[in-house]
């Protein structure tokens, strides 16, 4: 796993148009960004296209990264994720049934807890997610990791879309209250 201090330093150099630093940044983070995007865009060629666009944006905007507001990897992953979400919403409504195997939410929730590299921020977030009801936590995880829309979630949990929306809002409120008491 990459050291966050190194990534912040690389981003600072990238903002000064340092191409070597950009290549090092790419080497250190591309598999992670591919992982983020590939879970949302299950077509490999689309995932790669979106990751390319994300890195061009990272090259353009490295100077906007603020270490006080989060980790370098989180900042980069958010850029890639936002592009992936734009794409997945544009293409077609995704049904969770279309997702390939091996992406069960249970695996997502266990993985971080088992990871040695989990940060304090992740630990805090997982603790707060753990306080949500099982189903509500699953909904948040599916939305974040898989880009599930309200419609897809409604289908999966056999609940009307407005109910899903209400659950999402309550969960978000509860999460914030837990993270920032």
């Amino acid at each position, binding site marked *: 796993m990459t050291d966050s201090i190194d990534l912040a330093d690389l981003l600072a150099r990238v903002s000064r148009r340092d191409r070597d630093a950009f290549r090092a940044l790419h080497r250190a983070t591309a598999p992670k960004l591919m992982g*983020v995007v590939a879970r949302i865009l299950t077509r490999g060629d689309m995932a790669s296209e979106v990751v390319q666009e994300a890195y061009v944006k990272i090259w353009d905007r490295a100077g906007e990264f603020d270490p006080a507001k989060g980790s370098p990897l989180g900042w980069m992953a958010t850029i890639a994720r936002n592009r992936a979400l734009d794409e997945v919403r544009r293409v077609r409504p995704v049904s969770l049934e279309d997702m390939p195997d091996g992406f069960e939410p249970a695996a997502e929730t266990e993985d971080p807890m088992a990871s040695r590299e989990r940060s304090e921020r992740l630990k805090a977030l997982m603790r707060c997610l753990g306080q949500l009801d099982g189903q509500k936590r699953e909904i948040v995880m599916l939305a974040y990791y898989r880009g599930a829309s309200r419609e897809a979630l409604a289908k999966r949990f056999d609940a009307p879309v407005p109910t899903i929306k209400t659950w999402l809002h309550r969960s978000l409120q509860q999460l*914030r209250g837990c993270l920032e008491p």
Partner: protein
Amino acid sequence: MSLTPEDDFAAGEFALGTLDAAERATIAARRQREPELDAAIRAWEARLAPLNEAIAEVAPPPDLLAKIEARIDAGAPVGADVASLQTRLGRWRAAAVAAMSLAAMLAIGVFVRETGRTNAPHEFVAVLQKSADSPAFAVSVNIDTRELVVRPVAATAPAGKSYELWIIADKLGKPRSLGVIDAAAITRNPKLGAYDSATVEGATYAVTVEPEGGSPTGDPSGAPVFVGKLIPVGP
């Protein structure tokens, strides 16, 4: 002025990813000019971002870096003033994001006021749509370069048919074709070079459904399915 509870949730859902295409585009456009909303989205993104640490890595294609560098190089011609080019690119992207939203159309007053303070605007967007809640294509135009970029928002061409883009202005008489546009990818079109700035800025842009490959006669085969007009978005 503080954020309404609705906007606060919209910011949270934007970060979580559960908004639909139209809501997402609307929020993306609004955050460009509403710092409070933008800050709320960033705060939510930061709260949730640690989840990415837990994601298993996926090997990227071997040519990924080469493709990225080719894109970067294509955007930064040798000898160009890189700093100003980056600024321009940033604005251009912001304009493209704004174009994704019908909120951009509603904000016309704000944009006009803002751009009116500086020089005449050079960048414009139009949202081509059937009704207020169904944006289908976003058109961006740079008046200086006459570059026209068409981005599909939620368009699907009927099987065996093509979408064709038209520029409509009194001065031109009949609608003039700007070519066939792709419903699934970005179309870049240089054909605006034939028209003067005033015509380009004031024209109506319309999309018709045509036989595959475009209208065989050079005129629209039927009524437009999506229409829109340009609004200025950037200096």
